[in-house]
């Protein structure tokens, strides 16, 4: 380290396909250097090392070793949840109706064992039933060798955490394993989502710990000793030590970082915008308002799990640059949802491509072919083995494979399996190819895209490859525009369910299709600009612009927006506390994470809550990595003014927030 505190921050995004590393100067927010490396799914830190290595070579090691912070956004937690690859945990449910989770579909809470214990509280935070400590002890002793972590969730635990806290003490005493309580992760009602959140968090503790440990080692190998910060799903940062106890907070950190990065990189001065991040498989759509990500109020959902995590309100659409294009009747084309390898990246000769595409008859609709991959097929898969034989060394068209087998469904399933295990790549015409044909993108071999476009144009009924490609771009753009519109409407409180009627469909067509026929002509415009992220986004966003008038910008460096978003994040700690009247209406209870306390007046209860939370958050702030900064308190009263002007008071929520930022572009912050 030199005498001056470095102004550089290393931002890393370990995404699903690529791992990006950027160096950002916090004095001016400029991206000093950026590098990309393929993500190594088996061990993420390897991909991170590759990206840092590239970046180091690009900008010089001296700057990199002086970084003040290494900020990481990662899809690890999200992927682990979706794939179910997390550790064995026991979820202790205190005072829950025993059959809550067998009655509905909510029986998968992310825990391998569910344990019911008597206890729990009521709406006011009064004990509903005494906590059955003995029963808990017995069950923990029975389970302690079978699980790696415990999660505890009490009924109305957010209104009174005493049973959860006592359970934690007992489990700690008996096991020494990691334990997380529901009240530590959320202050909101919904015992099912709190339990899910706690269980997933417990299950992710070992997963995130492994990553952070190996990342620390990798950084040390580059002689980078700066502290590691991790991006949360709301785009803010937490220390590695906080993240290792609260890993669930990292879910959706990738999209959140990407959106915040896009805003930082944009030339547009508006701090309120839409961000569209188009990847290979999917596109993410989110909103930023006054420089802050719009958060999904009901909590983030990942896979089938509904959690209480306050994360970016992101709409994920099964539409990406590598989405498969297939045809219907003449003039009808479909995009996705399968991800395929674009023709331009097939890495073969034009002759071979031409020959593969000749397979099949004239009205073929799935211009796909299978190429050999590096994966190894596990024994005992006969259909897959036969398909692999067909693929050989030089690939085979899907049409040909389908002709060989009677059971097309089995073939589809087998192809999916082979693709997932890396034994083959499915290659086909994609929106990326269309952009290559039109000259809007040059990441691969345009000639291969052109061959595919010509073949498809004939079946589709287009005059030439360019016309067909324009139709593809137009279809993708229309879909993007449609989702933007739906998102706008959902902001106005319109449910997606209610949009599924004929009239809405008709009006959307009128709005989005410039050539829509009839006497009614509608035009829409967006009230906030759209920022595009990701290589193929630029071209599509331009077309969106023509359908919905509004400003569209694809900022420079947007291809590493997530890593930039990680670098520029602020460290933050938030907690809400409820102060509400008790049933006698003569006393007020402060429902603190430390416990409950009753007062005769609301003001007394609020003063007490503020004082205690200042201590509590001050203590936690250090753990999160927040330095000196003032706590912001926002008060929200839940009152209803009746027709006669009188008020009914239901409670006050106090929102405590600490924000600490390395950037100087907003001097007002903290």
């Amino acid at each position, binding site marked *: 380290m030199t005498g001056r505190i470095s102004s550089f921050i290393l931002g890393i995004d370990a995404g699903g396909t690529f791992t990006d590393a950027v160096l950002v100067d916090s004095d001016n927010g400029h991206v000093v250097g950026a590098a990309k490396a393929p993500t190594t799914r088996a061990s993420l830190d390897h991909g991170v090392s590759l990206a840092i290595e590239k970046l180091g070579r690009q900008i010089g090691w001296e700057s990199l070793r002086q970084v003040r912070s290494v900020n990481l956004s990662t899809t690890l937690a999200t992927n682990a949840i979706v794939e179910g690859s997390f550790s064995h945990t026991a979820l202790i449910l205190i005072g829950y*109706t025993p059959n809550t989770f067998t*009655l509905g579909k909510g029986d998968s809470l992310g825990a391998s064992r569910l344990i019911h214990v008597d206890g729990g509280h009521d*709406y006011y935070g009064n004990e509903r039933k005494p906590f059955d400590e003995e029963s808990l002890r017995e069950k923990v002793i029975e389970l302690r060798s079978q699980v790696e972590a415990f999660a505890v969730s009490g009924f*109305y635990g957010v209104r009174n955490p005493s049973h959860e806290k006592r359970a934690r003490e007992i489990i700690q005493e008996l096991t020494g394993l990691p334990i997380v309580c529901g009240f530590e992760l959320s202050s909101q009602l919904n*015992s*099912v989502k709190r339990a899910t959140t706690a269980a997933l968090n417990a299950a992710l503790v070992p997963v995130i710990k492994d990553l952070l440990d190996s990342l620390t080692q990798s950084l040390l190998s580059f002689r980078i000793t700066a502290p590691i910060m991790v991006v949360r799903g709301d785009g803010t940062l937490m220390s590695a030590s906080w993240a290792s106890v609260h890993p669930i907070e990292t879910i959706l950190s990738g999209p959140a970082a990407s959106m915040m990065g896009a805003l930082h990189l944009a030339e547009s001065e508006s701090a309120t915008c839409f961000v569209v991040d188009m990847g290979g498989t999917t596109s993410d759509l989110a909103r930023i308002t006054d420089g802050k990500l719009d958060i999904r109020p009901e909590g983030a959902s990942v896979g089938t799990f509904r959690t209480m995590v306050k994360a970016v309100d992101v709409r994920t659409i099964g539409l990406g640059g590598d989405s498969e294009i297939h045809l219907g009747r003449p003039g009808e084309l479909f995009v996705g949802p399968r991800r395929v390898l674009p023709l331009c990246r097939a890495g073969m000769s034009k002759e071979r491509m031409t020959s593969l595409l000749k397979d099949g008859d004239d009205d073929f609709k799935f211009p796909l072919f299978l190429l050999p991959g590096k994966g190894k097929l596990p024994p005992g898969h006969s259909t897959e083995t036969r398909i692999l034989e067909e693929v050989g060394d030089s690939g085979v068209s899907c049409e040909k494979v389908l002709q060989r087998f009677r059971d097309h469904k089995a073939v589809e399933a087998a192809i999916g399996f082979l693709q997932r295990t890396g034994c083959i790549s499915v290659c086909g015409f994609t929106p990326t190819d269309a952009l290559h044909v039109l000259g809007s993108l040059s990441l691969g071999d345009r000639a291969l895209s052109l061959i595919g476009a010509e073949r498809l144009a004939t079946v589709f009924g287009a005059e030439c490859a360019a016309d067909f490609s324009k139709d593809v771009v137009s279809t993708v753009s229309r879909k993007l525009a449609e989702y933007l519109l739906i998102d706008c409407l959902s902001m106005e409180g319109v449910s997606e369910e209610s949009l599924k009627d004929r009239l809405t469909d008709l009006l959307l067509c009128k709005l989005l299709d410039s050539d829509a026929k009839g006497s009614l002509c509608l035009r829409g415009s967006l009230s906030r600009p759209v920022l595009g992220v990701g290589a193929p986004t630029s071209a599509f966003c331009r077309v969106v612009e023509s359908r919905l008038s509004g400003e569209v910008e694809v900022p420079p460096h947007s291809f590493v927006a997530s890593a930039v978003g990680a670098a520029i994040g602020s460290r933050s700690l938030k907690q809400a506390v409820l102060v509400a009247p008790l049933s*006698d209406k003569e006393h007020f209870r402060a429902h603190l994470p430390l416990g409950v306390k009753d007062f005769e007046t609301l003001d007394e209860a609020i003063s007490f809550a503020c004082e205690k939370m200042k201590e509590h958050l001050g203590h936690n702030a250090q753990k999160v990595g927040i330095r000196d900064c003032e706590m912001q308190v926002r008060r929200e009263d839940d009152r*209803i003014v009746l027709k006669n002007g*009188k008020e*009914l008071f239901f409670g006050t929520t106090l929102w405590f927030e600490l924000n600490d930022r390395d950037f100087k572009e907003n001097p007002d912050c903290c």
Partner: protein
Amino acid sequence: MVSMNFSDFQKRVRKILETELPDGRLIRDEGSILARDIKIGRTAFMEKMGVTSEAEYKRQCIKDRRIMYHCHIGMNTWDETARALKRLYQVAEYNGFVQDRAGICLDRRMGLPESHRFNVPAETGPTLDSMQDWLDVGQAAPIQPHMGDFMIGFPAATENTTRALQAGVTTIGNLSQYFSHEVPMWKDGVRTAVETAKAISIMGVFRDQGALMHSYLDDGLGALFFDCATVAGWAYLERYIVEELLGAKLSHCMGGLISDPVKRSGWVFALDEIHDHDCIGSMFFGDTISFTKNFDTNRGLVAEYMLWDIMTQMECPTGHALLSIPVTEAVRIPSLEEIVEAQFFARRLEDVARRLLPHFDFSGAKAFASQVVRGGREVYRKAMEGLNEAGVDTQDPVQMLYVLKRIGPAVFEEMFGVGDEETSLPRGRVPQVANDVFEKSRECIELNRSLFADPEAQETFGGLKVLLASTDVHEHALFVIENLLRTTGAEVINLGPEKNPDEVAEGVLVNRVQVVLVSTHNGMALEYAKVLLAEMEERDVQVPIIFGGVLNQKVDEEIMPVDVDEDLVRLGIIPARTLEDLVNAGSSLCSGPAGKDR
């Protein structure tokens, strides 16, 4: 519809008896000691009539076949009340009739001990703040005051009874209110039971001096039983507690919820029988359930029931004073002029009644009386045996008062009712003699059946699983709605009356219903809705919620509850004030919050 067997009942009683209660015999003794310092005062009416108590006067009326008349004075302040009494007396004198007695509608806070009274928001009616105020009650005019509401049966029972007796008020109530009413911001149920027992024992000491323990059955559990036989059984039980255990003379009152003339008459015969033909009734209330907002219609109704009531008193004199209700009462607090008009009207009807009496046939009423008394005795026997078996010391007045109140009307009737068992009916029985409220519920079902048989209603509710619950004691509303919804093909789960939001939310979770319908009449719609939404959120259940009934909300310092339909809509709740609204709620159900994918 049957909610418990005897073993469940026993468990519930044992749970209730876990509360520490003082020995009721000692409380009775305490009352007797307190009574030593009390001397019954003399009211202007007693002076004028030359009697020492109202009971003495009543016995004279019975002997002389004279009809006594009651009126209700509901002015806001004591001064206004005193003026009204004076004016009423003058008008009566001028027109040559006797106004025998008047009920003073005091503020509900009078039920609270004096030390608590002034921390609680005022309601309607005056309070009596000094001994002089109490004495004035008896001296304002020669009309005997009746202290019915918020006296005995409440935490201030002992002090109020002492003062009332000292003021010369000898008919004091209201035991029935003990079982179904509460005073504001008071939660000590044990003290209420203790003070009630103590006050009744004071009345017991003055039994021979004419003290009458008033109990208006329709103002208590009597109104909440479906079977008249249960009401009669309950009357026997009250008599046992008041007369056997505490030594006072019980004076039963009825009438407000009875509209069938045969039943009105029949109940007088029945009460006479229940009280072993030594019935000294406080008063017989006017029929309030038939009243409409149309004053002329009401005038006709008053004529009808007063004619019956007067002739019944002539046939079976029980000392019940009769109440001619001012025709405006369903709309507003009647003015003095309106009270006077009603009293005039009654005296004119008495002339007619005397002429008609010989042509009347009371056999229907007598048959009714004999049937309900027979059933009542059986209910009483079953109740005493059941309570004993469940572990209640039936010799202890405090235990009896405390346990019976906590059991509530639905469980009492389910356990000790005498109708034939029929599980599809509320309380699991066919009432032996259905009371008028129950019959009106059945009429309501028939009247509205076509509304729910409508294809649109069937399409909306048919096949839906609906959870039904009430925030208050109005079981009849649930009975009506349950039956009507069933006609649409809906599957109805009726949780029953007096359900808290957590019980409703738990019901939604456990029964996996698609709609919740909450019936509410007790001025807490908005508060209830807020808590219900939180309880449902905590359980992760979200289904459309319909609120029906009287959708208003009390605010502490306000007398009149406020309509909250719009506030409920803002919370995402579908309001349905009428049965038509309920049928029309179908469209809201379709676009309302969908059942959460759990």
